């Protein structure tokens, strides 16, 4: 009878070793779960903040394409300062039907401008079609990369000796444009991305 009672007790409860072992396993699994979740959040945050650098690269590519299509045109001026650039180039203009639906994009001469918008803390691009450009109007500005702390343009031209020198004339199309973008990356570190763009006049 006594043996039977003891046996029933043994069957109805966990031993101390079993409870300790399961507790340890739960702790290990919880820790793994916590780390997996925290890393998941890190991955999510990184994937969101990483886009600044990608956007800056897209800005460089857009500016390169526009500058490579830049042209000397008596009706439209080149204008370049340390923080802004504006020049005549070939732009794609949407041509639509009377209902407003865009059917095709046609290439035409227009004026594009790039600069830093202090309010939006980003690099903006605006393009004016031929009619707007002649009226000295600007199209709607579109943010290409944000947040950006500052943006600097440098203009170089080949001098009499053949070397590239800093261009002082703000209204002459340069041979080379150097662009530097200053921003904070996802880790909060200050970074700079620089790109030299050669205009195909000599190259």
């Amino acid at each position, binding site marked *: 009878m006594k043996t039977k009672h003891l046996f029933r007790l043994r069957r109805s409860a*966990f031993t101390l070793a*079993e409870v300790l072992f*399961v507790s340890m*396993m739960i702790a*290990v*699994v919880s820790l*793994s*779960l916590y*780390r*997996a979740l925290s*890393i*998941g959040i*890190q*991955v999510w945050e*990184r*994937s969101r903040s*990483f886009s600044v*650098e*990608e956007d800056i*690269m897209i800005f*460089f590519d857009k500016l390169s394409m526009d500058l490579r299509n830049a042209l000397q045109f008596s009706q439209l001026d080149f204008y370049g300062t340390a923080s802004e650039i504006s020049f005549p180039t070939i732009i794609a203009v949407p041509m639509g039907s009377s209902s407003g639906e865009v059917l095709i994009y046609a290439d035409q001469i227009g004026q594009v401008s790039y600069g830093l918008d202090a309010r939006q803390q980003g690099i903006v691009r605006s393009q004016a079609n031929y009619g707007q450009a002649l009226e000295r109007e600007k199209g709607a500005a579109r943010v290409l990369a944000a947040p950006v702390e500052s943006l600097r343009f440098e203009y*170089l031209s*080949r001098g009499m000796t*053949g*070397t*590239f020198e800093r261009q002082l004339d703000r209204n002459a199309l340069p041979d*080379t444009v150097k662009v530097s973008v200053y921003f904070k*990356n996802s*880790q909060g*570190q200050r*970074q*700079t*991305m*620089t*790109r*030299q*763009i*050669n205009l195909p006049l*000599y*190259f």
Partner: protein
Amino acid sequence: MSRRGFTFFEMMVTMVILAVGLIGVYRAFGVSIQYQKVLQRRLYILNYLSDAVAAAESELLVARPNLTAQSRIAVPGPGAISGRIERSIESFQEAYQGVTALHVTLDVSLLNRGPASFHRTSLVYYDENKTSL
């Protein structure tokens, strides 16, 4: 309805399977972060390469034809990305006189993915016979 609970052995097997699954998820996140870092480095390297090609084009026109062939570089960006840059020129085709192919190669390290080589060629109008602008 059976009132028998799980045995200790069944619980242990479940825990092990769960742990293996979690380790898999954990590793997937780790690989994802690592790959994001690699992509970020790659982005800075590609930007540096584009910049280096444009600088080499300018230098080729000015230095004629004494282009610095090799040098060590430090790519600006997160972490220290150091490597080597190699530049060379060759005539493009006989039919296109004055057109020179400019080759720029960057050899850098991409974290634990080991060394990587990035190459870009640009065609520059550079006439060897022309001595002045």
